[in-house]
């Protein structure tokens, strides 16, 4: 008996007849409800970020001074790269909505091309985020951490530019070498030591009168506070270690919570982008194979489209709260 009937109505799960609640199909409505719950998750993260930031409002890092790098260039270009990333993601949202539009008109080849471009855009964005993480983890100029966990950065007095540790630190022969397991108890490992020790940085500071210490505190003009030479020397006494780059425990840019939230929120968003790319890829192959052509409609493209736009929507907020405000 031939029972293989494929019609456009078979996947409609609403069983109350032909009438659809709120005029939305089952799949689309459930995608929307998932997105609402996901939006609340992200809101929780961003609100927690706001909580920590308001708690330490006077000492929070200034994003413009943290994210200043652009690939293949040197120098300081705040905002430029992340603006480009934002544009790439919006652009891939546009190709996605064009794919949905072509799907409504049953234009298979157009859907294929637009889906392909969307996947490429998403991949470029994830790659950019990986680069951004790498730059942030490696760090820029280096800093000292005090006993109280505060960060001391260095500035050149004449130009007002940030000074890297390597600009003034002096090597002291005989400072501690990295512990290697072959030299002691084999299970006592040690991560790589910073390029300089505190003593080397302090000695270099004393030898170079052009260097000043900058604390985390933001003054009423919105800049970080610069200490005088004497204040700097007094402050250096409380330094306990050299910090280069950022991880979950130490952060050369300032408050470690800033790094924690950066990794957590952009990481969670990046994970969404990654899964979005994978889902888009699956649907892309389905389109190529003609699955939706045979089903009679391209609603599946519309549903993954909703997810993809949502990822873009979240990024718009992450961009504002991490990089602008």
């Amino acid at each position: 008996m031939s029972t293989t009937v494929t019609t456009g109505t078979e996947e409609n799960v609403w069983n109350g007849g032909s009438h659809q609640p709120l005029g939305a199909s089952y799949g689309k409505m459930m995608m929307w409800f998932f997105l609402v719950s996901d939006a609340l998750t992200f809101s929780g993260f961003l609100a927690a970020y706001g909580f920590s930031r308001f708690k330490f409002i006077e000492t929070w890092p200034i994003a413009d001074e943290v994210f200043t790098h652009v690939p293949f260039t040197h120098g300081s270009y705040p905002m430029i790269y992340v603006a480009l990333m934002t544009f790439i993601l919006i652009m891939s949202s546009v190709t996605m909505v064009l794919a949905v539009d072509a799907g409504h008109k049953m234009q298979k080849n157009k859907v294929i091309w637009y889906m392909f471009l969307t996947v490429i855009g998403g991949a470029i964005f994830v790659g950019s985020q990986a680069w951004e993480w790498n730059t942030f983890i490696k760090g820029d100029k280096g800093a000292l951490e005090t006993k109280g966990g505060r960060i001391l950065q260095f500035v050149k007095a004449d130009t007002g530019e940030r000074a890297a540790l390597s600009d003034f630190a002096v090597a002291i022969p005989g400072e501690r070498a990295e512990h290697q397991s072959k030299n002691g108890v084999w299970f006592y490992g040690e991560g790589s030591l910073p390029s300089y020790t505190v003593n080397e940085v302090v000695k270099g500071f004393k030898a170079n009168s052009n260097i000043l210490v900058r604390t985390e505190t933001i003054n009423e003009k919105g800049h970080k506070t610069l200490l005088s030479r004497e204040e700097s020397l007094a402050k250096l006494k409380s330094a306990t270690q050299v910090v280069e780059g950022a991880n979950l425990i130490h952060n050369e840019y300032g408050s470690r919570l800033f790094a924690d939230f950066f990794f957590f929120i952009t990481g969670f968003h990046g994970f969404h982008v990654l899964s979005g790319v994978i889902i888009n890829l699956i649907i892309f192959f389905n389109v190529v194979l003609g699955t939706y052509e045979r089903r009679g409609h391209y609603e599946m493209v519309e549903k993954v489209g909703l997810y993809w736009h949502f990822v873009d929507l979240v990024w718009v907020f992450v961009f504002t709260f991490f990089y602008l405000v």
Partner: protein
Amino acid sequence: MAHAHKLEIFRGLWKFKNNTQKIWGVLAFLTFITAIEVILGIIKPESLTGTSVLGMKLLNWIFIILTLVKAYYIAWDFMHLRDEKSAFRRAIVWTPIFLVLYLTFILLTEADYIYNVYKDGFVTWNF
């Protein structure tokens, strides 16, 4: 499935001939807003960072409002909320807005209180 798209944005101020044109129009608008944000973020005009409205810099309020404008056009035009039934749209939009406003209000008020405890109280983070 019927696919009637509403083809005008800005309350009918900008009308489009077809859906594809509307998509490009919305992209142009979103790019324009992002450009304004980036330019303001780089220049940081003294007049905007100096003025404080409701405990926050005017510039930050502008950023947040521009973000909400962007979010509106992404949801309404890219995610086709404009074409959904209004009851469905309201269920999706107002639920998170209410919960997020509530959560943000509570967390930020509490954070501000803790900030003042550190500032005026006997707790120090800088020893």
